Structure formats: structure tokens, C-alpha cells
């Protein structure tokens, strides 16, 4: 067990971050049909702002509040002002438009904060417990717990609540949703704002646990997308599990020297393999799809 347990826990700790990010992406996709490439950048700007607040000497709760507020406003702003104008385009076009948003945010971050090594330190970093020989800080536990809680909460929210149903309706067919009387602009803005808050949480945790660097936080969205691919962009639970699995696989690859340098590719490899496995035996076309 020894070393393996250590690597398992270490992998879970990183996987929780992938998972958390992935769940936020899937949620927005379930609600609005948009895959948000700017997710990382939104969280990144929140985290940078939080760092600034801490730097100025304000207490941590204020930093959290500012981070979440900024992420909420950025995301909801996009959802209110830009997303509706692109609503009639294909999902891929909607997705790449968010990349434009992400890049603009990245540019703004680099303008506001000259590239420099920074570190975000949160109070929870200070406490730690020992799991299978690996010390885990409070922040890492928070990531894992937040991942579980949000996964469970969101799955229920989408299925059980009216707002959740509205979001699913909106994502399914926007025009029809409007005809049926769904307040689409409102629901859309709420969904984006909600996902922005999740991006903020993710950004804070990434900023603390991975690196507080605008470019890294912006582009971390790409390996995170791997988890959503495994979850077929719809299953929150699968996405969460995929995130954990990717973290663990990445961690275990360290043990095998020849593959160790490639281990960062594990999100992508896991995504492609999972996909091939998921669609084994599927027919080329099926009635109803065309």
C-alpha cells in the first residue's frame, strides 16, 4: 500500500480540482448549451483580484467575496449581453466565441498585473490532516468536499427544481423554450452567473493549489474539458468521477519512469479512450437522429 496510497491520495487531491472545474462547465452546458472556454479566465481574474485584496491587507472573507462577485459579474455579463446574440449559432461557434472572451480577460489580467510570480495563500492552507501517509491541507479537502457537494447538489438541482428544468429546457431548444413561456433571458443570465460563481471558486482553489498565473489559469480549461468529454458534456456525476480518475491516473503514471514525462497528457488520453469505449458497438446512424 504505502507508496500507492500516497500516490492515490495525491492523485485525488489534484483530481478534485479537475472535477470541480468540469462540473462547472457541464452545468453551464446543461443549462444554456454553451461550453465556456473562458471559464478558466473568469476564475483566474477572480483569483487575481482576491490576491490583490489580500495583498492590500483586507481579511480573507472579503477576498473571497470580491473573487466570487467579479466572476459572477463577468460571467453573467457575458450571459446577458453576448450569449443571446450568439444563441442561434451552432454549439461550436458559441464555444469558440467564449475563447475570444477568455483571451480578452487574459489580456486584461496581464495588463492589470505585470507578469510576476505570485502566490495565493488561504487560511485553510494552514491546517492539515494525514490521509494514507499524505498530509492534506484544508484547502485540498475543501476542493474535494466542494466537488462532492456541488456534484450532488447540481444533479438534484437540475432534475428536481423548476429553475433546473427551465435551464434544461433552454439548453434543449431555445426558440421552443421561448414559445413555451420560459423567461429565457433571465434563466440564461442566472445560469451564467451561477457558473461564474463556480468558476470563481475553482479559480480560487486553482490559484491556491496550482499556481496563481493568469495564463496557466486561463488555459487549464483545456485539460478540464477532458473531464466533460468523458461525461459526454451532460453527466455531472460522470464528469466528477472522470476528474478524480484523471488525477489518480496522472499521479500513478509518475511511478512508471518511461511514461512519467507524458503524464500531463493523461486527461486527453483518458478522454479519448473513454470515448472509444463509450461508443463501442454504436451504429453509424440511428433512427431519429437525422
Amino acid at each position, binding site marked *: 500500500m504505502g507508496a500507492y496510497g500516497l500516490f492515490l491520495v495525491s492523485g485525488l487531491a489534484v483530481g478534485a480540482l479537475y472535477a470541480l472545474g468540469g462540473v462547472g462547465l457541464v452545468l453551464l452546458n446543461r443549462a444554456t448549451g454553451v461550453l465556456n472556454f473562458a471559464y478558466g479566465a473568469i476564475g483566474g481574474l477572480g483569483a487575481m483580484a482576491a490576491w490583490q485584496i489580500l495583498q492590500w491587507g483586507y481579511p480573507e472573507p472579503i477576498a473571497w467575496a470580491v473573487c466570487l462577485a467579479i466572476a459572477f459579474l463577468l460571467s453573467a455579463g457575458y450571459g446577458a449581453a453576448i450569449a443571446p446574440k450568439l444563441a442561434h449559432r451552432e454549439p461550436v461557434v458559441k464555444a469558440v466565441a467564449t475563447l475570444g472572451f477568455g483571451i480578452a480577460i487574459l489580456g486584461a489580467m496581464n495588463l492589470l498585473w505585470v507578469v510576476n510570480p505570485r502566490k495565493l495563500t488561504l487560511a485553510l492552507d494552514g491546517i492539515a490532516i494525514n490521509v494514507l501517509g499524505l498530509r492534506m491541507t484544508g484547502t485540498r479537502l475543501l476542493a474535494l468536499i466542494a466537488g462532492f457537494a456541488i456534484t450532488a447538489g447540481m444533479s438534484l438541482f437540475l432534475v428536481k427544481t423548476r429553475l433546473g428544468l427551465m435551464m434544461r429546457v433552454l439548453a434543449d431548444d431555445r426558440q421552443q423554450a421561448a414559445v413555451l413561456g420560459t423567461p429565457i433571458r433571465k434563466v440564461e443570465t442566472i445560469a451564467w452567473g451561477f457558473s461564474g460563481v463556480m468558476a470563481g471558486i475553482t479559480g480560487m482553489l486553482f490559484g491556491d493549489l496550482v499556481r496563481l498565473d493568469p495564463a496557466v489559469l486561463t488555459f487549464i480549461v483545456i485539460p478540464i474539458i477532458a473531464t466533460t468529454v468523458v461525461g459526454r458534456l451532460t453527466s455531472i456525476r460522470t464528469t466528477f468521477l472522470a476528474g478524480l480518475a484523471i488525477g489518480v491516473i496522472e499521479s500513478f503514471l509518475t511511478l512508471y519512469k518511461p511514461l512519467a514525462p507524458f503524464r500531463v497528457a493523461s486527461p486527453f488520453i483518458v478522454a479519448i479512450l473513454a470515448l472509444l469505449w463509450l461508443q463501442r458497438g454504436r*451504429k453509424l*446512424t*440511428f*433512427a431519429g437522429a*437525422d
Partner: protein
Amino acid sequence: MISISDITVAFGGVRALNKVSVDLSDPVVGIIGPNGAGKTTFLNVLSGFITPLSGSIRAFGSEILPMPPHRRSRWGIRRSFQKEQVVDELTIEDNVGVVLDSLGLGSAERERHLAAALEFCGLSALRKTRAGGLNAFERRMTEIARCAAGKPKILMLDEPGAGLSQIEMDRLRQVILDIHSFNGAMTLLIDHDVDLIQAVCSSTMVLDFGSLVVAGPTRDVLSDPRVRAVYLGVEEVA
């Protein structure tokens, strides 16, 4: 002559087709039944989009089921779709001619088949027009021309009359009636317009809940009490 035996299709728990066995031999055969009866599924089995759980299909001496869909088309099974499928950015001649591409014809022969099919469906004047500008009727006719071009053995039309006006219906009726003499192919026609079925189909099969209710001469089928109950609603024929 198509002989179908024991075809069963299930989607999850739903039996969309249940041990359907029937022999079809008239030039135009109607397929009717309530919504969700399995008519489109039946065509999907014939064209190879759905693999049945059991059963076999022999048509004109060939075993159909082992062939992949595109081979069936080359062999001679053609179909139109419940939602019309014409490609907007292609011209009418390309929309129709594409079916001849895979038949390995010489260019003269290809042109001959193409011209004949367009003429048959009354589209000759429009052949260089892009399909994007066509109206619903012209689009339907383009689809039928695509099915009829070359030397098909079986044409399957899934609700070709849906959404057409009465005048257009009359022309459609004429085209369907003429297919057999145009290229010798047999036609399977799904439609909910009983007048159309009555006018063009010498025999008809009726599906309900995936099972064959009855098959035979159209007149007999339409007066069958079971059909009147499940499909027509009793007073309709009375």
C-alpha cells in the same frame, strides 16, 4: 416481390416491430397505421439503418439484411424521408445525380438516367437551380427523382404528401402511379392521406403497435373492421 419474415425490432423495452411477416408484390404497396405503429421503423429496417433482432428479408432473389445501407442503395433500395432531405447548396441535378455517382456509370449513360429522372418528375427546367430556393413541392419531387434515377428495384416513400396542397397532391399521385412504368420499380408508400393510398396502392399493409394487423388489396384492408377501429375511426368510411 419482397418476402419479409419474422422481423422484430426493439428499442429498450418498446417493441417497435413485432414478428412482422408479409409478402409484398404489387407495383405500389401502401403502409398505413396509427402514429408510432412502426411504419418508419419498418422502412428503416429495409434500408439498413436498424438491424432487427430477428427475421429475414428476401427481395427479388437477394438476401437483404446482410448488406450495409449504402450497398442496399446500390443494389436498388431507395427511399425518401419523413423530414424531406434535399441539400440546399447543391443544384437539383447534383441532388439527383449523386445517387448515380456510386453506380459506376459512363458519363453518357449517367446523363441519360439523370435527364430521364428529372423529366419524369417535371424538374428538367430547374435542373441547374440550387435547391435552396425551391418550394416544398419541388423539394419533394427532387427527392422522388433521386429515388427513381438509375435502375432501382424498390422505392420507399415516407409520407411524401405531408404538407402539400391539394393541387400538388394530384401531381404527386400521378408521379407515384407512373413510377412502375417509368423504371419498373416497386413502390412502398407510407402516408396518412387515405385518399392517396386508395388512389395509388393496389395493396396495403396495416401496422399497429409494431404488429401486422392485416395485408391485402387496399379496398379490403380499408373496410376491415380492425383497421377502421385502430386507424380510421369508425365513421370515416361509413
